[in-house]
C-alpha cells in the first residue's frame, strides 16, 4: 500500500499549529435586520441567564419554577374539581408581583450592565443604529415577560385540554379562553417592560436600577389606595390610573370583563372609564418607549 509506506517514510507530526497569518474576511456581512435579531436573541438569553454564570440563572429560573408550579397546581385542581379555579387572566394578575421582581432583575441585567461597563461605544461604533439597540432590548424584555406568563398559561391550557369531557369542542372553548389570557399577559409584559427598562436605563448601578423599578411600581400603589377611598365617585373610578399595576388591571376589566372578574366586580371599579384606562396604558407605553429612545440618543456619545 503506497499510502502506508509514504507515511512511514515521512511521518507527519500531529498537533502542530501553523501560523497562517492574518486572513481577510470574504464571507457575507449581514444587514441591519439580522444584527437586530442577534441583539434581540442575545437579550432574551440574558434575561433567563443563558450564556452567563450559574449564579445569574438562579433568580430567573426560580421565578419560572414558581409560576409553572402554580400553573400545574391550578391545572391539577381544575381536573379534580371539574371547574376552573382561576381564569387565565386571573392567573396573570395573581402572578404580577412575581413578574415585577423578575423585571427588577432582568431590566438592569439588560441595560444597566452595558452602561456601567462602558461597552456602549463598542456598539455604537458599529453599523447598528442607537434606536435599534434600545428597541432590541425592549423587545427582548417584552418577550421574556410574555413567555414568563404565557408559558404557564399554556401549561394550564394543556392540563384543561387533556382533561376536558366535551371532546374537541371543549378544547376549542378552552382555546377561546386562552387567547384573551395570552393577550392580557402580553399587556402586562409590554407595560412592565417599557417602564422597567426606561428606569433601568437611567443608571449603571444594577442595585439602584432594581430598587428604582420596584419603587415605581410599589410606591404608586398607596396613591391608588388614597384615591380610591376619596368621597368622589369619579376619583375612585379613575384611581387605578395612578399605578401601572392597577392601570393594567383596569384595562383588563374593561376589555375582558368576566374573564377577569367573574360576576362580582370586586374591589376595583372603573365605571365607564374603560377606554380612558386603555388610552392611558397606550400613552404610558408609548411615552416610556419614546423616553427610552431619547435616552439612547444621548447616552455615551
Amino acid at each position: 500500500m503506497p499510502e502506508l509506506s509514504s507515511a512511514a517514510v515521512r511521518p507527519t507530526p500531529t498537533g502542530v499549529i501553523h501560523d497562517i497569518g492574518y486572513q481577510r474576511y470574504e464571507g457575507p456581512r449581514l444587514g441591519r435586520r439580522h444584527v437586530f435579531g442577534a441583539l434581540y436573541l442575545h437579550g432574551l438569553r440574558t434575561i433567563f441567564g443563558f450564556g452567563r454564570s450559574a449564579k445569574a440563572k438562579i433568580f430567573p429560573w426560580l421565578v419560572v419554577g414558581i409560576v409553572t408550579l402554580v400553573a400545574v397546581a391550578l391545572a391539577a385542581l381544575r381536573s379534580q374539581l371539574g371547574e376552573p379555579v382561576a381564569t387565565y387572566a386571573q392567573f396573570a394578575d395573581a402572578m404580577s408581583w412575581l413578574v415585577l421582581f423578575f423585571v427588577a432583575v432582568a431590566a438592569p441585567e439588560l441595560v444597566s450592565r452595558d452602561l456601567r461597563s462602558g461597552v456602549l461605544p463598542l456598539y455604537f461604533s458599529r453599523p447598528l443604529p442607537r434606536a435599534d439597540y434600545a428597541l432590541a432590548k425592549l423587545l427582548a424584555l417584552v418577550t421574556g415577560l410574555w413567555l414568563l406568563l404565557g408559558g404557564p398559561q399554556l401549561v394550564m391550557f394543556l392540563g384543561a385540554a387533556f382533561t376536558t369531557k366535551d371532546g374537541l369542542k371543549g378544547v376549542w372553548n378552552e382555546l377561546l379562553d386562552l387567547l384573551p389570557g395570552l393577550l392580557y399577559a402580553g399587556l402586562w409584559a409590554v407595560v412592565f417592560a417599557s417602564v422597567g427598562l426606561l428606569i433601568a436605563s437611567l443608571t449603571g448601578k444594577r442595585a439602584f436600577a432594581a430598587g428604582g423599578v420596584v419603587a415605581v411600581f410599589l410606591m404608586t400603589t398607596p396613591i391608588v389606595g388614597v384615591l380610591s377611598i376619596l368621597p368622589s365617585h369619579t376619583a375612585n373610578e379613575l384611581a387605578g390610573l395612578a399605578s401601572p399595576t392597577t392601570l393594567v388591571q383596569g384595562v383588563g376589566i374593561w376589555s375582558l370583563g368576566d374573564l377577569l372578574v367573574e360576576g362580582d366586580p370586586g374591589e376595583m371599579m372603573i365605571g365607564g372609564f374603560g377606554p380612558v384606562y386603555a388610552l392611558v396604558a397606550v400613552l404610558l407605553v408609548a411615552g416610556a418607549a419614546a423616553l427610552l429612545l431619547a435616552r439612547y440618543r444621548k447616552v455615551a456619545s
Partner: protein
Amino acid sequence: MTLIATQSLTKTYGGRVTALTDLTVAVEPGIIGLVGANGAGKSTLIKILLGLIAPTSGQVSVLDIDPTAEPAAVRARVGYMPEHDCLPPDLSAAELVTHLGRMSGLPRTAARERASEALRHVGLYEERYRPVGGYSTGMKQRVKLAQALVHDPDLLLLDEPTNGLDPAGRDAMLALVHRIGTEFGISVLVCSHLLGEVERICDTLIAIDGGRLLRADHISAMTTATDVLAVEVSEGTEELAARLAALDLPVARDGRLLLVPLADDSTYDLILGAVAELDLPLHRLDQRRHRVSELFATRELTHA
C-alpha cells in the same frame, strides 16, 4: 484612494467650546499617527470620522464615504478602539468579541471563528475563555484591539492604544499596531499624545493642537529634510564657517555650533576635510536627528 479627507472641518460644542477649527487634511492608506496634547481635538476627530457626532461645518470622507450621510456604511468598514475602559468584566474575551462580531454583521459561526482569530493575532490564547475582569491592563487593551479587528475592517481607529501600559507593554502594543498596518493590509489611525511613540511606527503624521492642524505629512518628509550635522571646534569657528560656505554648504550658526544640513555621506567628508585643512581642533561632529517634536516646536515659534 484617499483614506481620510477633511475639508475645513470645524466642530464647536454648544457654540462656545471649539474642538476643531478649519481642519483640512488628506491622507493615504498606511499607518497614520494623530498626535496632539490632551484636548487638542483627537477624540472629536475620531468621533466625526465614525459618524458618531456631526461636524459644525466642513466636509469629511472616510474610505471615500461621507460619515455624516452614511454612518452605517463607514462603521461597517472601520474598527474602533476607544480610549477608556469598555469591557464588561463578567464576560470572557471570546464571548465578548464573538458577540461584537455579530453586532458587526458576521454570521454566528464566522463571528466565533473570527473572534478567536482576532484574539490569537493580538496574543490572547487560553486566557480568552476567562472573564475579562481578571485581566491585566495590557490584556484588556489587547481585547479592545481584537474587538476592533473582528469584522476585518479596512481602517482601524485606535484612540490612545498604549494608555496605562508599562514601557514593555507599550512596545508590544506598538509592535502589534505596526504589524497590523504592514502585514494585515489594514490602515491604522493611531491617536496619541506621545509623539515619540507614534513616530516610530507610522508612515504619516498628523499633528493637531487646539483643534488646528499643525502639520500633516509623510514622516520621511518630516525627518530626512531636517537631519543636520552639528560641528563644534574649539577655535576658528568663523574660519570654518567661511570655508564651508565656500564649499557650497549652507551653514547655520547655533551658538558655538555650526549646523550643516546632511545631504549624504559626502557631507561628512567635506566637513572633515575642511577641518583638517584649517588644522582646527575638532570638538565634536555628530548627526542631529531632529525629533519630529522639534519640528513642531520651531513651527510654533515661527507662528508666534
